[in-house]
């Protein structure tokens, strides 16, 4: 009995010992896995589940002076298909489950995507996991595709740059490529303001590759791009572009530009060009229309330079309102060359105002030809010629103003009436801004600021240059008013109700073969209003209009734009007469 009793007890002890050993080992491993190696195991496990994703930052908007959006970022959608998964689709229609064949689905997609049915059918019938059906469809189309609920259709969301006003200010705004890389204009120049910084997030995915809800962790938040605030008034810009497009069409010109400046602040309100580029699709126009000629093209200004020369003559004391000049229609120079007026006339007894009124080359040469070339060169620099403006636009031209020491005898005289030098339209316009602003040239302002997180950066420095005395500027404007009040072509620039001062320009353009001046002209009219206290400067230049022999083609667009500017900004009409200064003498 004793031996029989001992055997079960021993077996029980052995089993208990074994169970204890197993529990001990399991417990040990449990502690090892759950405590000692827990972090390492978690890390390995997480690495297998973890997916990193770039959080795309949104490029900032470009806004006009009134906060109207000229460029913003939206989304477009690539519609893709997984051909390997293509099959019939079941759909519940009014409680009835029906099967739609691949052909039926292809027809539905073709209708929504505006594609040929065969093209869609071919794409979905291929092999592999990816085939693109259509790129960059808009949100409305995307929504229609989504509503079909086709399991083998998947969509990629892509950032897309939208320019809601199309070609309005397109030449200065510039554009980006399909990947959002800025290629031209302010988009490129101010990329540091507009571009954001991409962020990063991680999330966990299941064995089936699906994102596990609530597992997303933002490692680095994206920094959104800033908004670029321009001084451009988009409504006025549109109006000016309409006027220019009409002028280019009717005069069969190569191109035309118009500039509007707020005289007392230097703010650029309009920088219009025709033809212009629609940044939504720059490929629609040739490359030469995608640039900004206002900043990038230079031309010989011709007679618009006479206002500047007159101001220099007045400021140096070389002339006054009553200076008497006898101007013939031609002037022979000691070295044999001649300077001619644009029309034949008997000798005229002219004052400086009269010289501007009939735009006499001989008269301006006699008026200011004796002023030292070094003095004139310094004045021209102060007026802003020969160097880029403070806007420093991408690819901006400095024009061409050789140092005075390099001027030959002829250049010394031709620069008086805008030949032998080249200017950009923006330079010429701001030289008139100096006259309109009591002799102080302000740095052009095109960008007001960059706003980011409530902070304003990139604000303009606000530089200014005193070019001529206040009295000189006032007298020059009074003289320019006679061009509009009494001049031939100039009088067609009159704006009813307002006193307007300005100057015509009909500059011959060098022939393409380099054999001197050809038959083409750059015609222009630069002016300001109201002349008694100029608020706005308007400049119009039309390049190579067909059949032009004077600037009569430039005054109607000037008049239209100036009228609109004065009306737009509610400028009260003039109530005083023009200054009592002579244009001729006896």
């Amino acid at each position, binding site marked *: 009995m004793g031996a029989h009793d001992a055997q079960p007890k021993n077996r029980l002890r052995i089993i208990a010992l074994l169970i204890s050993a197993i529990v001990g080992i399991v417990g040990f491993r449990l502690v090892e896995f759950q405590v000692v190696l827990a972090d390492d195991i978690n890390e390995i496990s997480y690495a297998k589940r973890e997916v990193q994703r770039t959080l795309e930052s949104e490029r900032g908007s470009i806004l006009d002076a009134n906060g109207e*959006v000229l460029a913003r970022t*939206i*989304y477009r959608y690539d519609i893709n298909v997984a051909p390997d998964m293509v099959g019939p689709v079941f759909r519940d229609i009014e409680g009835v489950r029906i099967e739609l064949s691949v052909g039926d689905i292809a027809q539905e997609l073709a209708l929504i995507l505006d594609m040929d049915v065969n093209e869609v059918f071919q794409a979905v019938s291929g092999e592999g996991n990816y085939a693109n059906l259509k790129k960059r469809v*808009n*949100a*409305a189309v*995307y*929504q229609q595709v989504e509503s079909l609920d086709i399991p083998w259709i998947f969509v990629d969301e892509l950032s897309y740059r*939208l*320019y*809601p*006003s*199309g*070609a*309005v200010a397109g030449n200065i705004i510039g554009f980006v490529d399909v990947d959002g890389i800025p290629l031209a204009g302010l988009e490129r120049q101010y990329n540091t303001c507009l571009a954001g910084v991409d962020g990063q997030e991680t999330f966990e995915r299941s064995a089936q590759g699906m994102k596990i*809800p609530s597992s997303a962790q933002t490692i680095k938040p994206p920094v959104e791009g800033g908004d670029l605030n321009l001084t451009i008034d*988009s*409504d006025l810009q*549109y109006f000016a*572009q*309409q006027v220019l*497009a*009409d002028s280019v*069409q009717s005069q069969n010109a190569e191109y035309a530009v118009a500039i509007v400046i707020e005289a007392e602040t230097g703010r650029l309100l309009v920088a219009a060009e025709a033809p*212009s580029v*629609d940044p*939504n*699709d720059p490929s*629609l126009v040739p490359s030469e229309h995608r640039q900004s000629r206002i900043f990038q093209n230079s031309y010989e200004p011709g007679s618009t330079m006479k206002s500047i020369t007159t101001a220099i003559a007045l400021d140096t004391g070389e002339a006054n309102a009553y200076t008497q000049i006898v101007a013939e229609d031609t002037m022979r120079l000691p070295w044999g060359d001649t300077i001619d007026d644009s029309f034949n006339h008997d000798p005229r007894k002219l004052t400086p105002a009269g010289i501007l009124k009939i735009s006499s080359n001989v008269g301006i040469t006699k008026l200011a030809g004796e002023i030292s070339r070094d003095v004139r060169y310094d004045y021209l620099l102060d007026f802003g010629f020969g160097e880029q403006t403070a806007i420093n636009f991408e690819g901006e031209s400095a024009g061409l103003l050789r140092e005075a020491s390099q001027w030959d005898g002829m250049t010394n005289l031709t620069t008086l009436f805008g030949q032998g030098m080249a200017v950009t339209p923006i330079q010429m316009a701001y030289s008139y801004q100096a006259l309109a602003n009591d002799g102080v040239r302000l740095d052009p302002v095109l960008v007001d600021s960059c706003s980011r997180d409530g902070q304003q950066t990139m604000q303009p420095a606000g530089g200014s240059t005193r070019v001529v005395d206040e009295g000189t500027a006032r007298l020059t404007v009074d003289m320019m008013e006679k061009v509009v009040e009494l001049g031939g072509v100039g009088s067609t620039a009159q704006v*009813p*109700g307002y006193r307007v001062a300005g100057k015509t320009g009909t500059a011959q353009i060098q022939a393409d073969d380099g054999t001197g001046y050809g038959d083409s002209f750059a015609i222009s009219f630069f002016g300001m209003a109201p002349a008694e206290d100029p608020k706005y400067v308007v400049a119009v230049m039309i390049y190579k209009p067909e059949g032009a022999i004077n600037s009569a083609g430039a005054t109607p667009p000037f008049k239209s734009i100036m*009228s609109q500017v004065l*009306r737009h900004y*509610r400028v*009260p*009409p003039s*109530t005083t007469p023009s200054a009592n200064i002579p244009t001729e003498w006896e």
Partner: protein
Amino acid sequence: MNKGDARALRPKAMLFLVPTVGIAAVLVLQLLLSNSLAGGAHQLRDLKKESEQLSTDVQILSEEVDSLSSQQNLAEAAKQLGMVSNANPVFLNLETDRVYGEPQPAISEEKLRVSGNLISNTAMSVTTDLSTLVQNPSVGVATVEISGGEVILSSAMIPASPTR
């Protein structure tokens, strides 16, 4: 079994009953919690989907607004409505009652009408449908009637001109 034996056995039954009920309660609670979490996940998914749909709706509508408010569309609509740009604006100075400029009626000649759009805009997805404005009397400027009742000054003394 007498009463004493039954009393002796009662704690053992309780020992079995309490854990069983406890485990059952925990399981039921876990089930409820799982259901609740699953329901929440479904709700979260539905709300996310709805949010995405609403974002897409906002994008579609804002692109439509962009198109309709673009200068190109407005110019075309103005032209179709026969609007005329008056080249002779007149300004009134309310402080001095002074009139600046010479009032002249806008002349409805073809050449003076607001010109049709010449500036391209490939972003325009919709344009103003003027047929709706003309046909539907409840909308549009073409059929708006200006109410012309008498306007009484706050002093209630002299009726002011309703055309003021």
